């Protein structure tokens, strides 16, 4: 019995190391990148550039705050950017042509996100359609709706909106970065400390067992897509405030950025594993690489090749570490 207990202890230690190990290796990667890129280009490690990196991460972080929660249930949301495009064009229109106050615009963005998130939620949680298929389909539907709403670019003029998108607090910290961290902390808190967060992990870990334990797994999954939509809607509005204009095509083609960062952060696509800290680190790594390559004047296409390769490398390391190759 004694040896048994020791074995249990040993294994659990190793497992604890495993879950921390992922975040730790991401932090090491960030530091290493920082040093290498800093040597390659002196501008890279300046404070201004750090803010650039965070600014470039802000929208992704808001989206990922919702998407991480949905993906921990074993789900997926590819329709976020399209939802954001609708929120962007509608909010910009309401703001410009009706002069709606900023709080109303924000509420509208959140409401639009919730509404379209609910569509995903019903399809996935209650009608049991595969989340990838569902959100590939709704991505197209929502994008179509954005184009049907308007096919022109709408300038954002409202001062408060512009301040949210492009303003700085004390002249140094971008407002949108602060907002993004607000979303991050909310999602972090939700996942780590609340009943709902616990249920999200349980449903993701084993839906059948969760249901048999009396968790309403359909409801939990539905709420996850509401949250994902909510984040997407707000991100879409903030993006148009950042750019200074809302376009029905905004965010098209970059749907995978969020997914890539989340997976890099150690989330398991089969569900039950993942964290907001991992997601944040994943986003930072991808932003740092993109920014570093930009600073060094490497062209956009090379950046895509590099980013994709890094993702494969990261996932491959994970596969090797889990021993899945040996099991073959």
């Amino acid at each position: 019995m004694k040896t048994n207990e020791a074995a249990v202890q040993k294994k659990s230690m190793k497992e604890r190391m495993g879950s921390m190990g992922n975040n730790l290796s991401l932090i090491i990667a960030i530091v290493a990148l920082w040093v290498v890129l800093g040597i390659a280009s002196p501008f890279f490690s300046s404070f201004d550039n750090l803010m650039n990196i965070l600014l470039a991460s802000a929208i992704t972080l808001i989206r990922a705050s919702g998407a991480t929660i949905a993906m921990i249930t074993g789900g997926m949301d590819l329709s976020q950017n399209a939802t954001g495009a609708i929120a962007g064009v509608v909010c910009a229109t309401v703001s410009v042509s009706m002069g709606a106050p900023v709080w109303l615009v924000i509420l509208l963005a959140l409401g639009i996100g919730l509404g379209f998130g609910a569509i995903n939620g019903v399809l996935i949680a209650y009608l049991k359609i595969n989340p990838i298929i569902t959100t590939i389909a709704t991505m197209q539907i929502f994008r179509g709706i954005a184009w049907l709403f308007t096919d022109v670019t709408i300038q954002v003029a409202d001062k408060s909106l512009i301040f949210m998108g492009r303003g700085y607090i004390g002249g140094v910290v971008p407002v949108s970065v602060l907002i993004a961290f607000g979303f991050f902390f909310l999602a972090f808190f939700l996942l780590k400390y609340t009943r709902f967060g616990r249920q999200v992990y349980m449903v993701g870990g084993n839906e059948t067992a969760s249901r048999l334990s009396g968790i309403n797994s359909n409801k939990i999954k539905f709420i996850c897509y509401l949250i994902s939509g909510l984040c997407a809607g707000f991100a879409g509005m903030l993006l148009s405030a950042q750019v200074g204009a809302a376009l029905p095509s905004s965010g098209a083609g970059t749907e995978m950025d969020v997914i890539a960062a989340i997976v890099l952060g150690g989330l398991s696509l089969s569900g039950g594993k993942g964290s907001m800290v991992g997601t944040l680190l994943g986003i930072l790594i991808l932003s740092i690489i993109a920014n570093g390559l930009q600073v060094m004047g490497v062209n956009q296409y090379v950046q895509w090749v590099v980013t994709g390769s890094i993702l494969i490398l990261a996932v491959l390391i994970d596969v090797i570490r889990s021993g899945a190759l040996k099991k073959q």
Partner: protein
Amino acid sequence: MGSEYRLQMKGITKQFPGVLALDGVDLEVKAGEVLAVIGENGAGKSTMMKILSGALLNDHGEIYLDGELVPPEKNARERLDLGIAIIYQELNYLDEMTIAENLFMGELPVKGAFKTVDFKKLRKQAQELLNKFDLPYDPFTKVGTLTVAEKQMIEILRAVSKDVKVLVMDEPTSALSETEIEQLYAFIKDLASKGVSILYISHKLDEVFAVTDKIQVMRDGKRVGYLNTKDTTEEELVELMVGRELSDMYPKEEAQIGETVLEVKHLDCEIAHDVSFKVRKGEILGLFGLLGSGRTEAVEGILGKKEMTAGEIYIEGKQVTIKNMIEAKKYGLAYVPASRKDEGLILIQTVRANTSVTVLDQLGAIIDKKKETELIDDWIKKLRIKTPSPDVPVDSLSGGNQQKVVLAKWLAASPKVLIVNEPTRGIDVGAKVEIYKLLEELCQEGIAVIMISSELPETVGIADRILIFKEGEIKGEFDRKDFTQKQILQIAVGGEQ
């Protein structure tokens, strides 16, 4: 090199963590002989066959085929080439492909530079094989259109398409109808007459008498009998299978039995038909029967996990309808499913999360960590769960401790009726006794326990009353004072009451 036996297994020993699954077991079978391997669940039949097929490695012992040693490192594929084939309970065929493709899967005849499938040759090969065993099917029929029995024969054909010497059939009739079983028997006899040795794993005694020449009885990882089928009787076999006297493994204590908590009337659910019973406070009601006898369906019908097509449920005298586990929980029902891994636990999550999952509502929207920790420490102590901390994945615990976590999670919800399905499956003897003790203690506290089990000794050991299921219906009821294992097993496996 010649040998008296086609297959000989000598002194096979296998130790699992905490359980000695096989303890120096011998097995031998001659060419053209059909040998039944029988025993209760957990007797070691499947482990023995897994070792034979190469799916598991034994700790000690050797396997000889026609007198030649089978090297233990040979894997399942290589053993198949040697002539050892196994047909499992779950069949492995591809419904959307033809009989011919299924028969020659992995070695389809090819032609030309692009190695395209040579369908002409494939048809010819398949037709020859089908003719050899007088099976009247077109080789290009889709397997999906066949009946289960026909599929099974295709599966057997696939095994014998190679030069098979020993064919293992694991519970081959579990999905077959009467007439299909007859067909299968004829097929088995035909194979044996062609010199194939057959190991027939089963716990249905009527089948054993119908089709085998010899019988090997196993119990607790040992061979306890090796008999000629024609020289033995059902009684003798049952005695051998049950074996031991009830030892102090079952700490039966008399509990105060109170009023009825749960009553079921004329329930239909899938194969379970017209099931009626009551269970009272402080009582352990054993539902005994073989796999597929409808016990689980009856219980899952009550809990709303499966759809109940007829019947009524009363809890403390009030009629209720239960659509799912969320509602069942509200009425004070708790369910420990048979499969810890798939249905009982969320393996990758912690002991903490798995234990408090049923009482999250009481811990607030923002989880009261302190209250949760107290609750969990309490249950860890009460159930003597061995874990380094509540915050390790439940995955890292032993089977017995995992099972205790499942129990803890439901006991935390203070149920009126605790339904446990195969509560001691796959856990070692020490942990089994602890689970029995625990169930007894719960009865003392006035909980009603329903225990589904395929293990007769434990059912007889701790139940106050036993209902015997066979083919979806309750075929017998015994009070504790009237239990005899023989009688119960006879009703469950074949004979008449």
